[in-house]
Structures are given as structure tokens and as C-alpha cells.
């Protein structure tokens, strides 16, 4: 079998544009999704049983169903349900954000649980009101501890974003597949696309480890 990787070079700009779109979607959905996930984890701690059940159901649902079907549902069904035509990129943003919110709310919940019970005791011993305790002691620590797993979540989102190609959004995956089909050189192009994804995701995962060591060791034991 003949492999000709030089065929990739003329297309580098197109591939780069695809990558840019992937990063744009990943970045914006990561930010909005994390904020939403934070709010969601707060809501999940509310005393109202209805609220707790509703948010838990949301999180379990988005974690327990394939992202692909979530994408398809938003893409195909939202316009029908809301009588609004939805451009593909909007439905993609909505879907990825909803997914990211579910994932990050679990992350925040995990970090809140990881704060030792003795911290809560110390706050009572200092006569701090519950509000002061949450605002000045629990939350700052939870947010600090959440940074490494959040970064992991972002890397996951970056990989999952490849699915948006299935609804026609011209991200890196879509572009790569298109070109490989038209040039009938799947091995060269798909491998190149894989390498591009790898070159972005791998350093980020290493960064997570570094952040974890530096940040947590100093400020969160």
C-alpha cells in the first residue's frame, strides 16, 4: 500500500481552519458550561427535594446518554418543539453546553465532598455563621480543588467536539473526513487529523498534572 503524506500539505490551511472552529466551540462551551455546571451543583445542594431531584435527573440523564443522541435531539427536535429554525452551530453550542454543565456539576460536587469534615468543625469552633463558612472557607477551597479536574473536562470536551461533524459543522473532523473522501486518501488525512487532535490534547493533559502539583500543593494541601 502506498502512503503519500505529502498530499496533506496543500490542505494545511483548511485543516487549520477546522481546528480553529473546533477550538472556538470547545472554548466557548467550556466556559458557559462550567458556569452552568457550577450553578447546577449549587442547586443540587438546595434543601428543596424537588430541586434536588430535578437537577440530579438532569445530570444523570446527560451523563447516561450518548452525546451523539443529545446532539441529534437538539439539532432535529428543538426546531420542532420551539418552532424556531436553529442554525447548526447554535444547536451544537446548546448541546455541548448542556453536556458540559452536567459533567462539571459532578466535578464541583466531588470537590465539595472532598473538603474534610474537620474544616466544617473548625468553622463552628470559630463561631462562623453558615454563610460565612460557605463563602470564605468552603467555596474558595472547592473552586481551587476543582481546577485540575475541570481542565480534564475541557480536554474531554475537546475530544467529544468531533461529533459536531455529524450534523454538518465544519470542524476539524468534518474537514478531515471531507478531504479524505474527496482525495480517497483516508489513511493520510485521518492520521494527520488524529495527530493534530493529539498535539492539542496531550500537552493539555500534562498541564493538568502540573497545575495539580503546583496549585494544590500550595493552597489546598
Amino acid at each position, binding site marked *: 500500500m502506498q502512503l503519500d503524506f505529502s498530499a496533506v500539505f496543500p490542505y494545511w490551511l483548511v485543516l487549520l481552519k477546522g481546528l480553529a472552529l473546533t477550538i472556538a466551540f470547545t472554548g466557548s462551551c467550556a466556559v458557559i458550561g462550567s458556569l452552568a455546571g457550577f450553578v447546577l451543583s449549587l442547586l443540587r445542594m438546595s434543601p428543596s427535594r424537588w430541586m434536588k431531584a430535578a437537577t440530579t435527573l438532569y445530570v444523570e440523564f446527560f451523563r447516561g446518554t450518548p452525546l451523539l443522541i443529545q446532539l441529534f*435531539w437538539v439539532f432535529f427536535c428543538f426546531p420542532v418543539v420551539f418552532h424556531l429554525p436553529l442554525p447548526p452551530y447554535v444547536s451544537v453550542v446548546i448541546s455541548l453546553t448542556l453536556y458540559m454543565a452536567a459533567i462539571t456539576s459532578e466535578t464541583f460536587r466531588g470537590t465539595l465532598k472532598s473538603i474534610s469534615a474537620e474544616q466544617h468543625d473548625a468553622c463552628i469552633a470559630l463561631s462562623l455563621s453558615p454563610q460565612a463558612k460557605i463563602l470564605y472557607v468552603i467555596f474558595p477551597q472547592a473552586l481551587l480543588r476543582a481546577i485540575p479536574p475541570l481542565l480534564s473536562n475541557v480536554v474531554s470536551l475537546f475530544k467529544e467536539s468531533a461529533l459536531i461533524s455529524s450534523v454538518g459543522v465544519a470542524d476539524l473532523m468534518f474537514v478531515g473526513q471531507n478531504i479524505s473522501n474527496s482525495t480517497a486518501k483516508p489513511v493520510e488525512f485521518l492520521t494527520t487529523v*488524529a495527530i493534530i487532535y493529539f498535539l492539542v490534547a496531550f500537552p493539555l493533559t500534562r498541564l493538568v498534572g502540573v497545575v495539580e502539583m503546583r496549585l494544590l500543593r500550595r493552597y489546598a494541601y
Partner: protein
Amino acid sequence: MNYQFDFRFLEGSFGALLDGLRVTIELAVASNLMGLVLGFALCLLAMSRWTIVRWPAQLFIEFFRCTPALLQIVWFFYCVPMMVDVFIDPILMGVLALGLNLTAFNAEAYRAGVQAVPKEHLDACVALGLKPWQRTMYVVLPQALRTAMPVLMTNGIGSLQQSALVAIVAVADLMYVGKSLATEAYRPLETYTVVALIYFALSLPIAKLVHVIERRQDLAVKR
């Protein structure tokens, strides 16, 4: 919302959905078995003392963990037939692609489990005169597996969700059947909702089981 829900049309396609579900479950179970067994083997390779074994293993793990699953599946389906002039059953290819992906993630889970065993236990083994293989068999492995189990199960649920990706390469799993039905009958809402609920119903019990196991482990650690 003026949409008229009409689930009745699905009744006729019940058989098709069931076939798709069967394929999905086949994919999930087979890839999980592969992932659990090979993942363990890969973990051993990745932790081996010989660099020549360790580096390729670690590269494999990192590559499968840092690239999209969809890309891996598409690569498999388009490139392997080109490279190997043999016809491989699409479902088998799906199992391989999903299985290799799961292998990499499980290898990480096993590794984390092994590294979580406190060094004191290893020291105690030396003090008790246990040989290295005895130490691994009787002390490290049981504890590593116990730690790794929730993660392995969560990865398993993840592979169930990822199996839906094979629909993109036209393997007739539940997702593919759902998509065909939705487009044929112009009824995406009912079809996709039902398909989503089926996936949810499959993964929820396992997720709950993971919760229970984790809680029990937390209590055990406290003691």
C-alpha cells in the same frame, strides 16, 4: 407547543429497534470484555521496567486517550480495509475500535489503582519475606482492583455511550436504527426521545451500582 406526539408509528418498528438494541449490547459487552482484560495487560506493560516495552505501551495509551473516539472509529472503518485486504465484519470492527479505546482508559484506571496501594504495604511485604510475585498477587492486586472498580465500571458506561458512534459508519446499532426511523418517518422527536430513554435505562442501573460501591468503599476506608 402544537406538536402532536404520535408514538404509535413506533409500534411497527419495534422489531427494528430491538435488533439495533441487540447490536448495541453486543458491542458494549464485547468491547468491555476486551477492555477489561487487555487493559490490565496493557497496564502491566506500561509499568514494566524495560523501557522498550514501557514506551510503546504508554504511547498507545496516550494516543487513544488524547484523540476523539469518533476519529478512532472512522479511522478503523476507512483505513483498515485499505491496509488489510481482508473483509472484517463491521460489528467486529466496531468491537475492536471501541475495545482498543476502552483498553487505553482501563489501563489508566488499573495504574491508578496500583499506585493507590500505600507504600507501607509493600514495605510490610518485604518485611514479611514475601516474594515479589506473591506481593503482587496477594496484596497489590486485590487492593488495586478494589480501587479501580468504580472507574472501570464508569468507563464501561462510557463505552456504551460511545457505541452509538458506530452509527456514523453505518453499523446497524440502536442509534443507526433510530436515525433511519427518524428520517424515514419525519418524526425525530418521538424516535430520538425513545432511543435516548433506552440508552438511559441501560446505563442508569450500572451508574447506581457504582454509587453504591463507592459509598461502601468510603465507609470501609473510614474504618
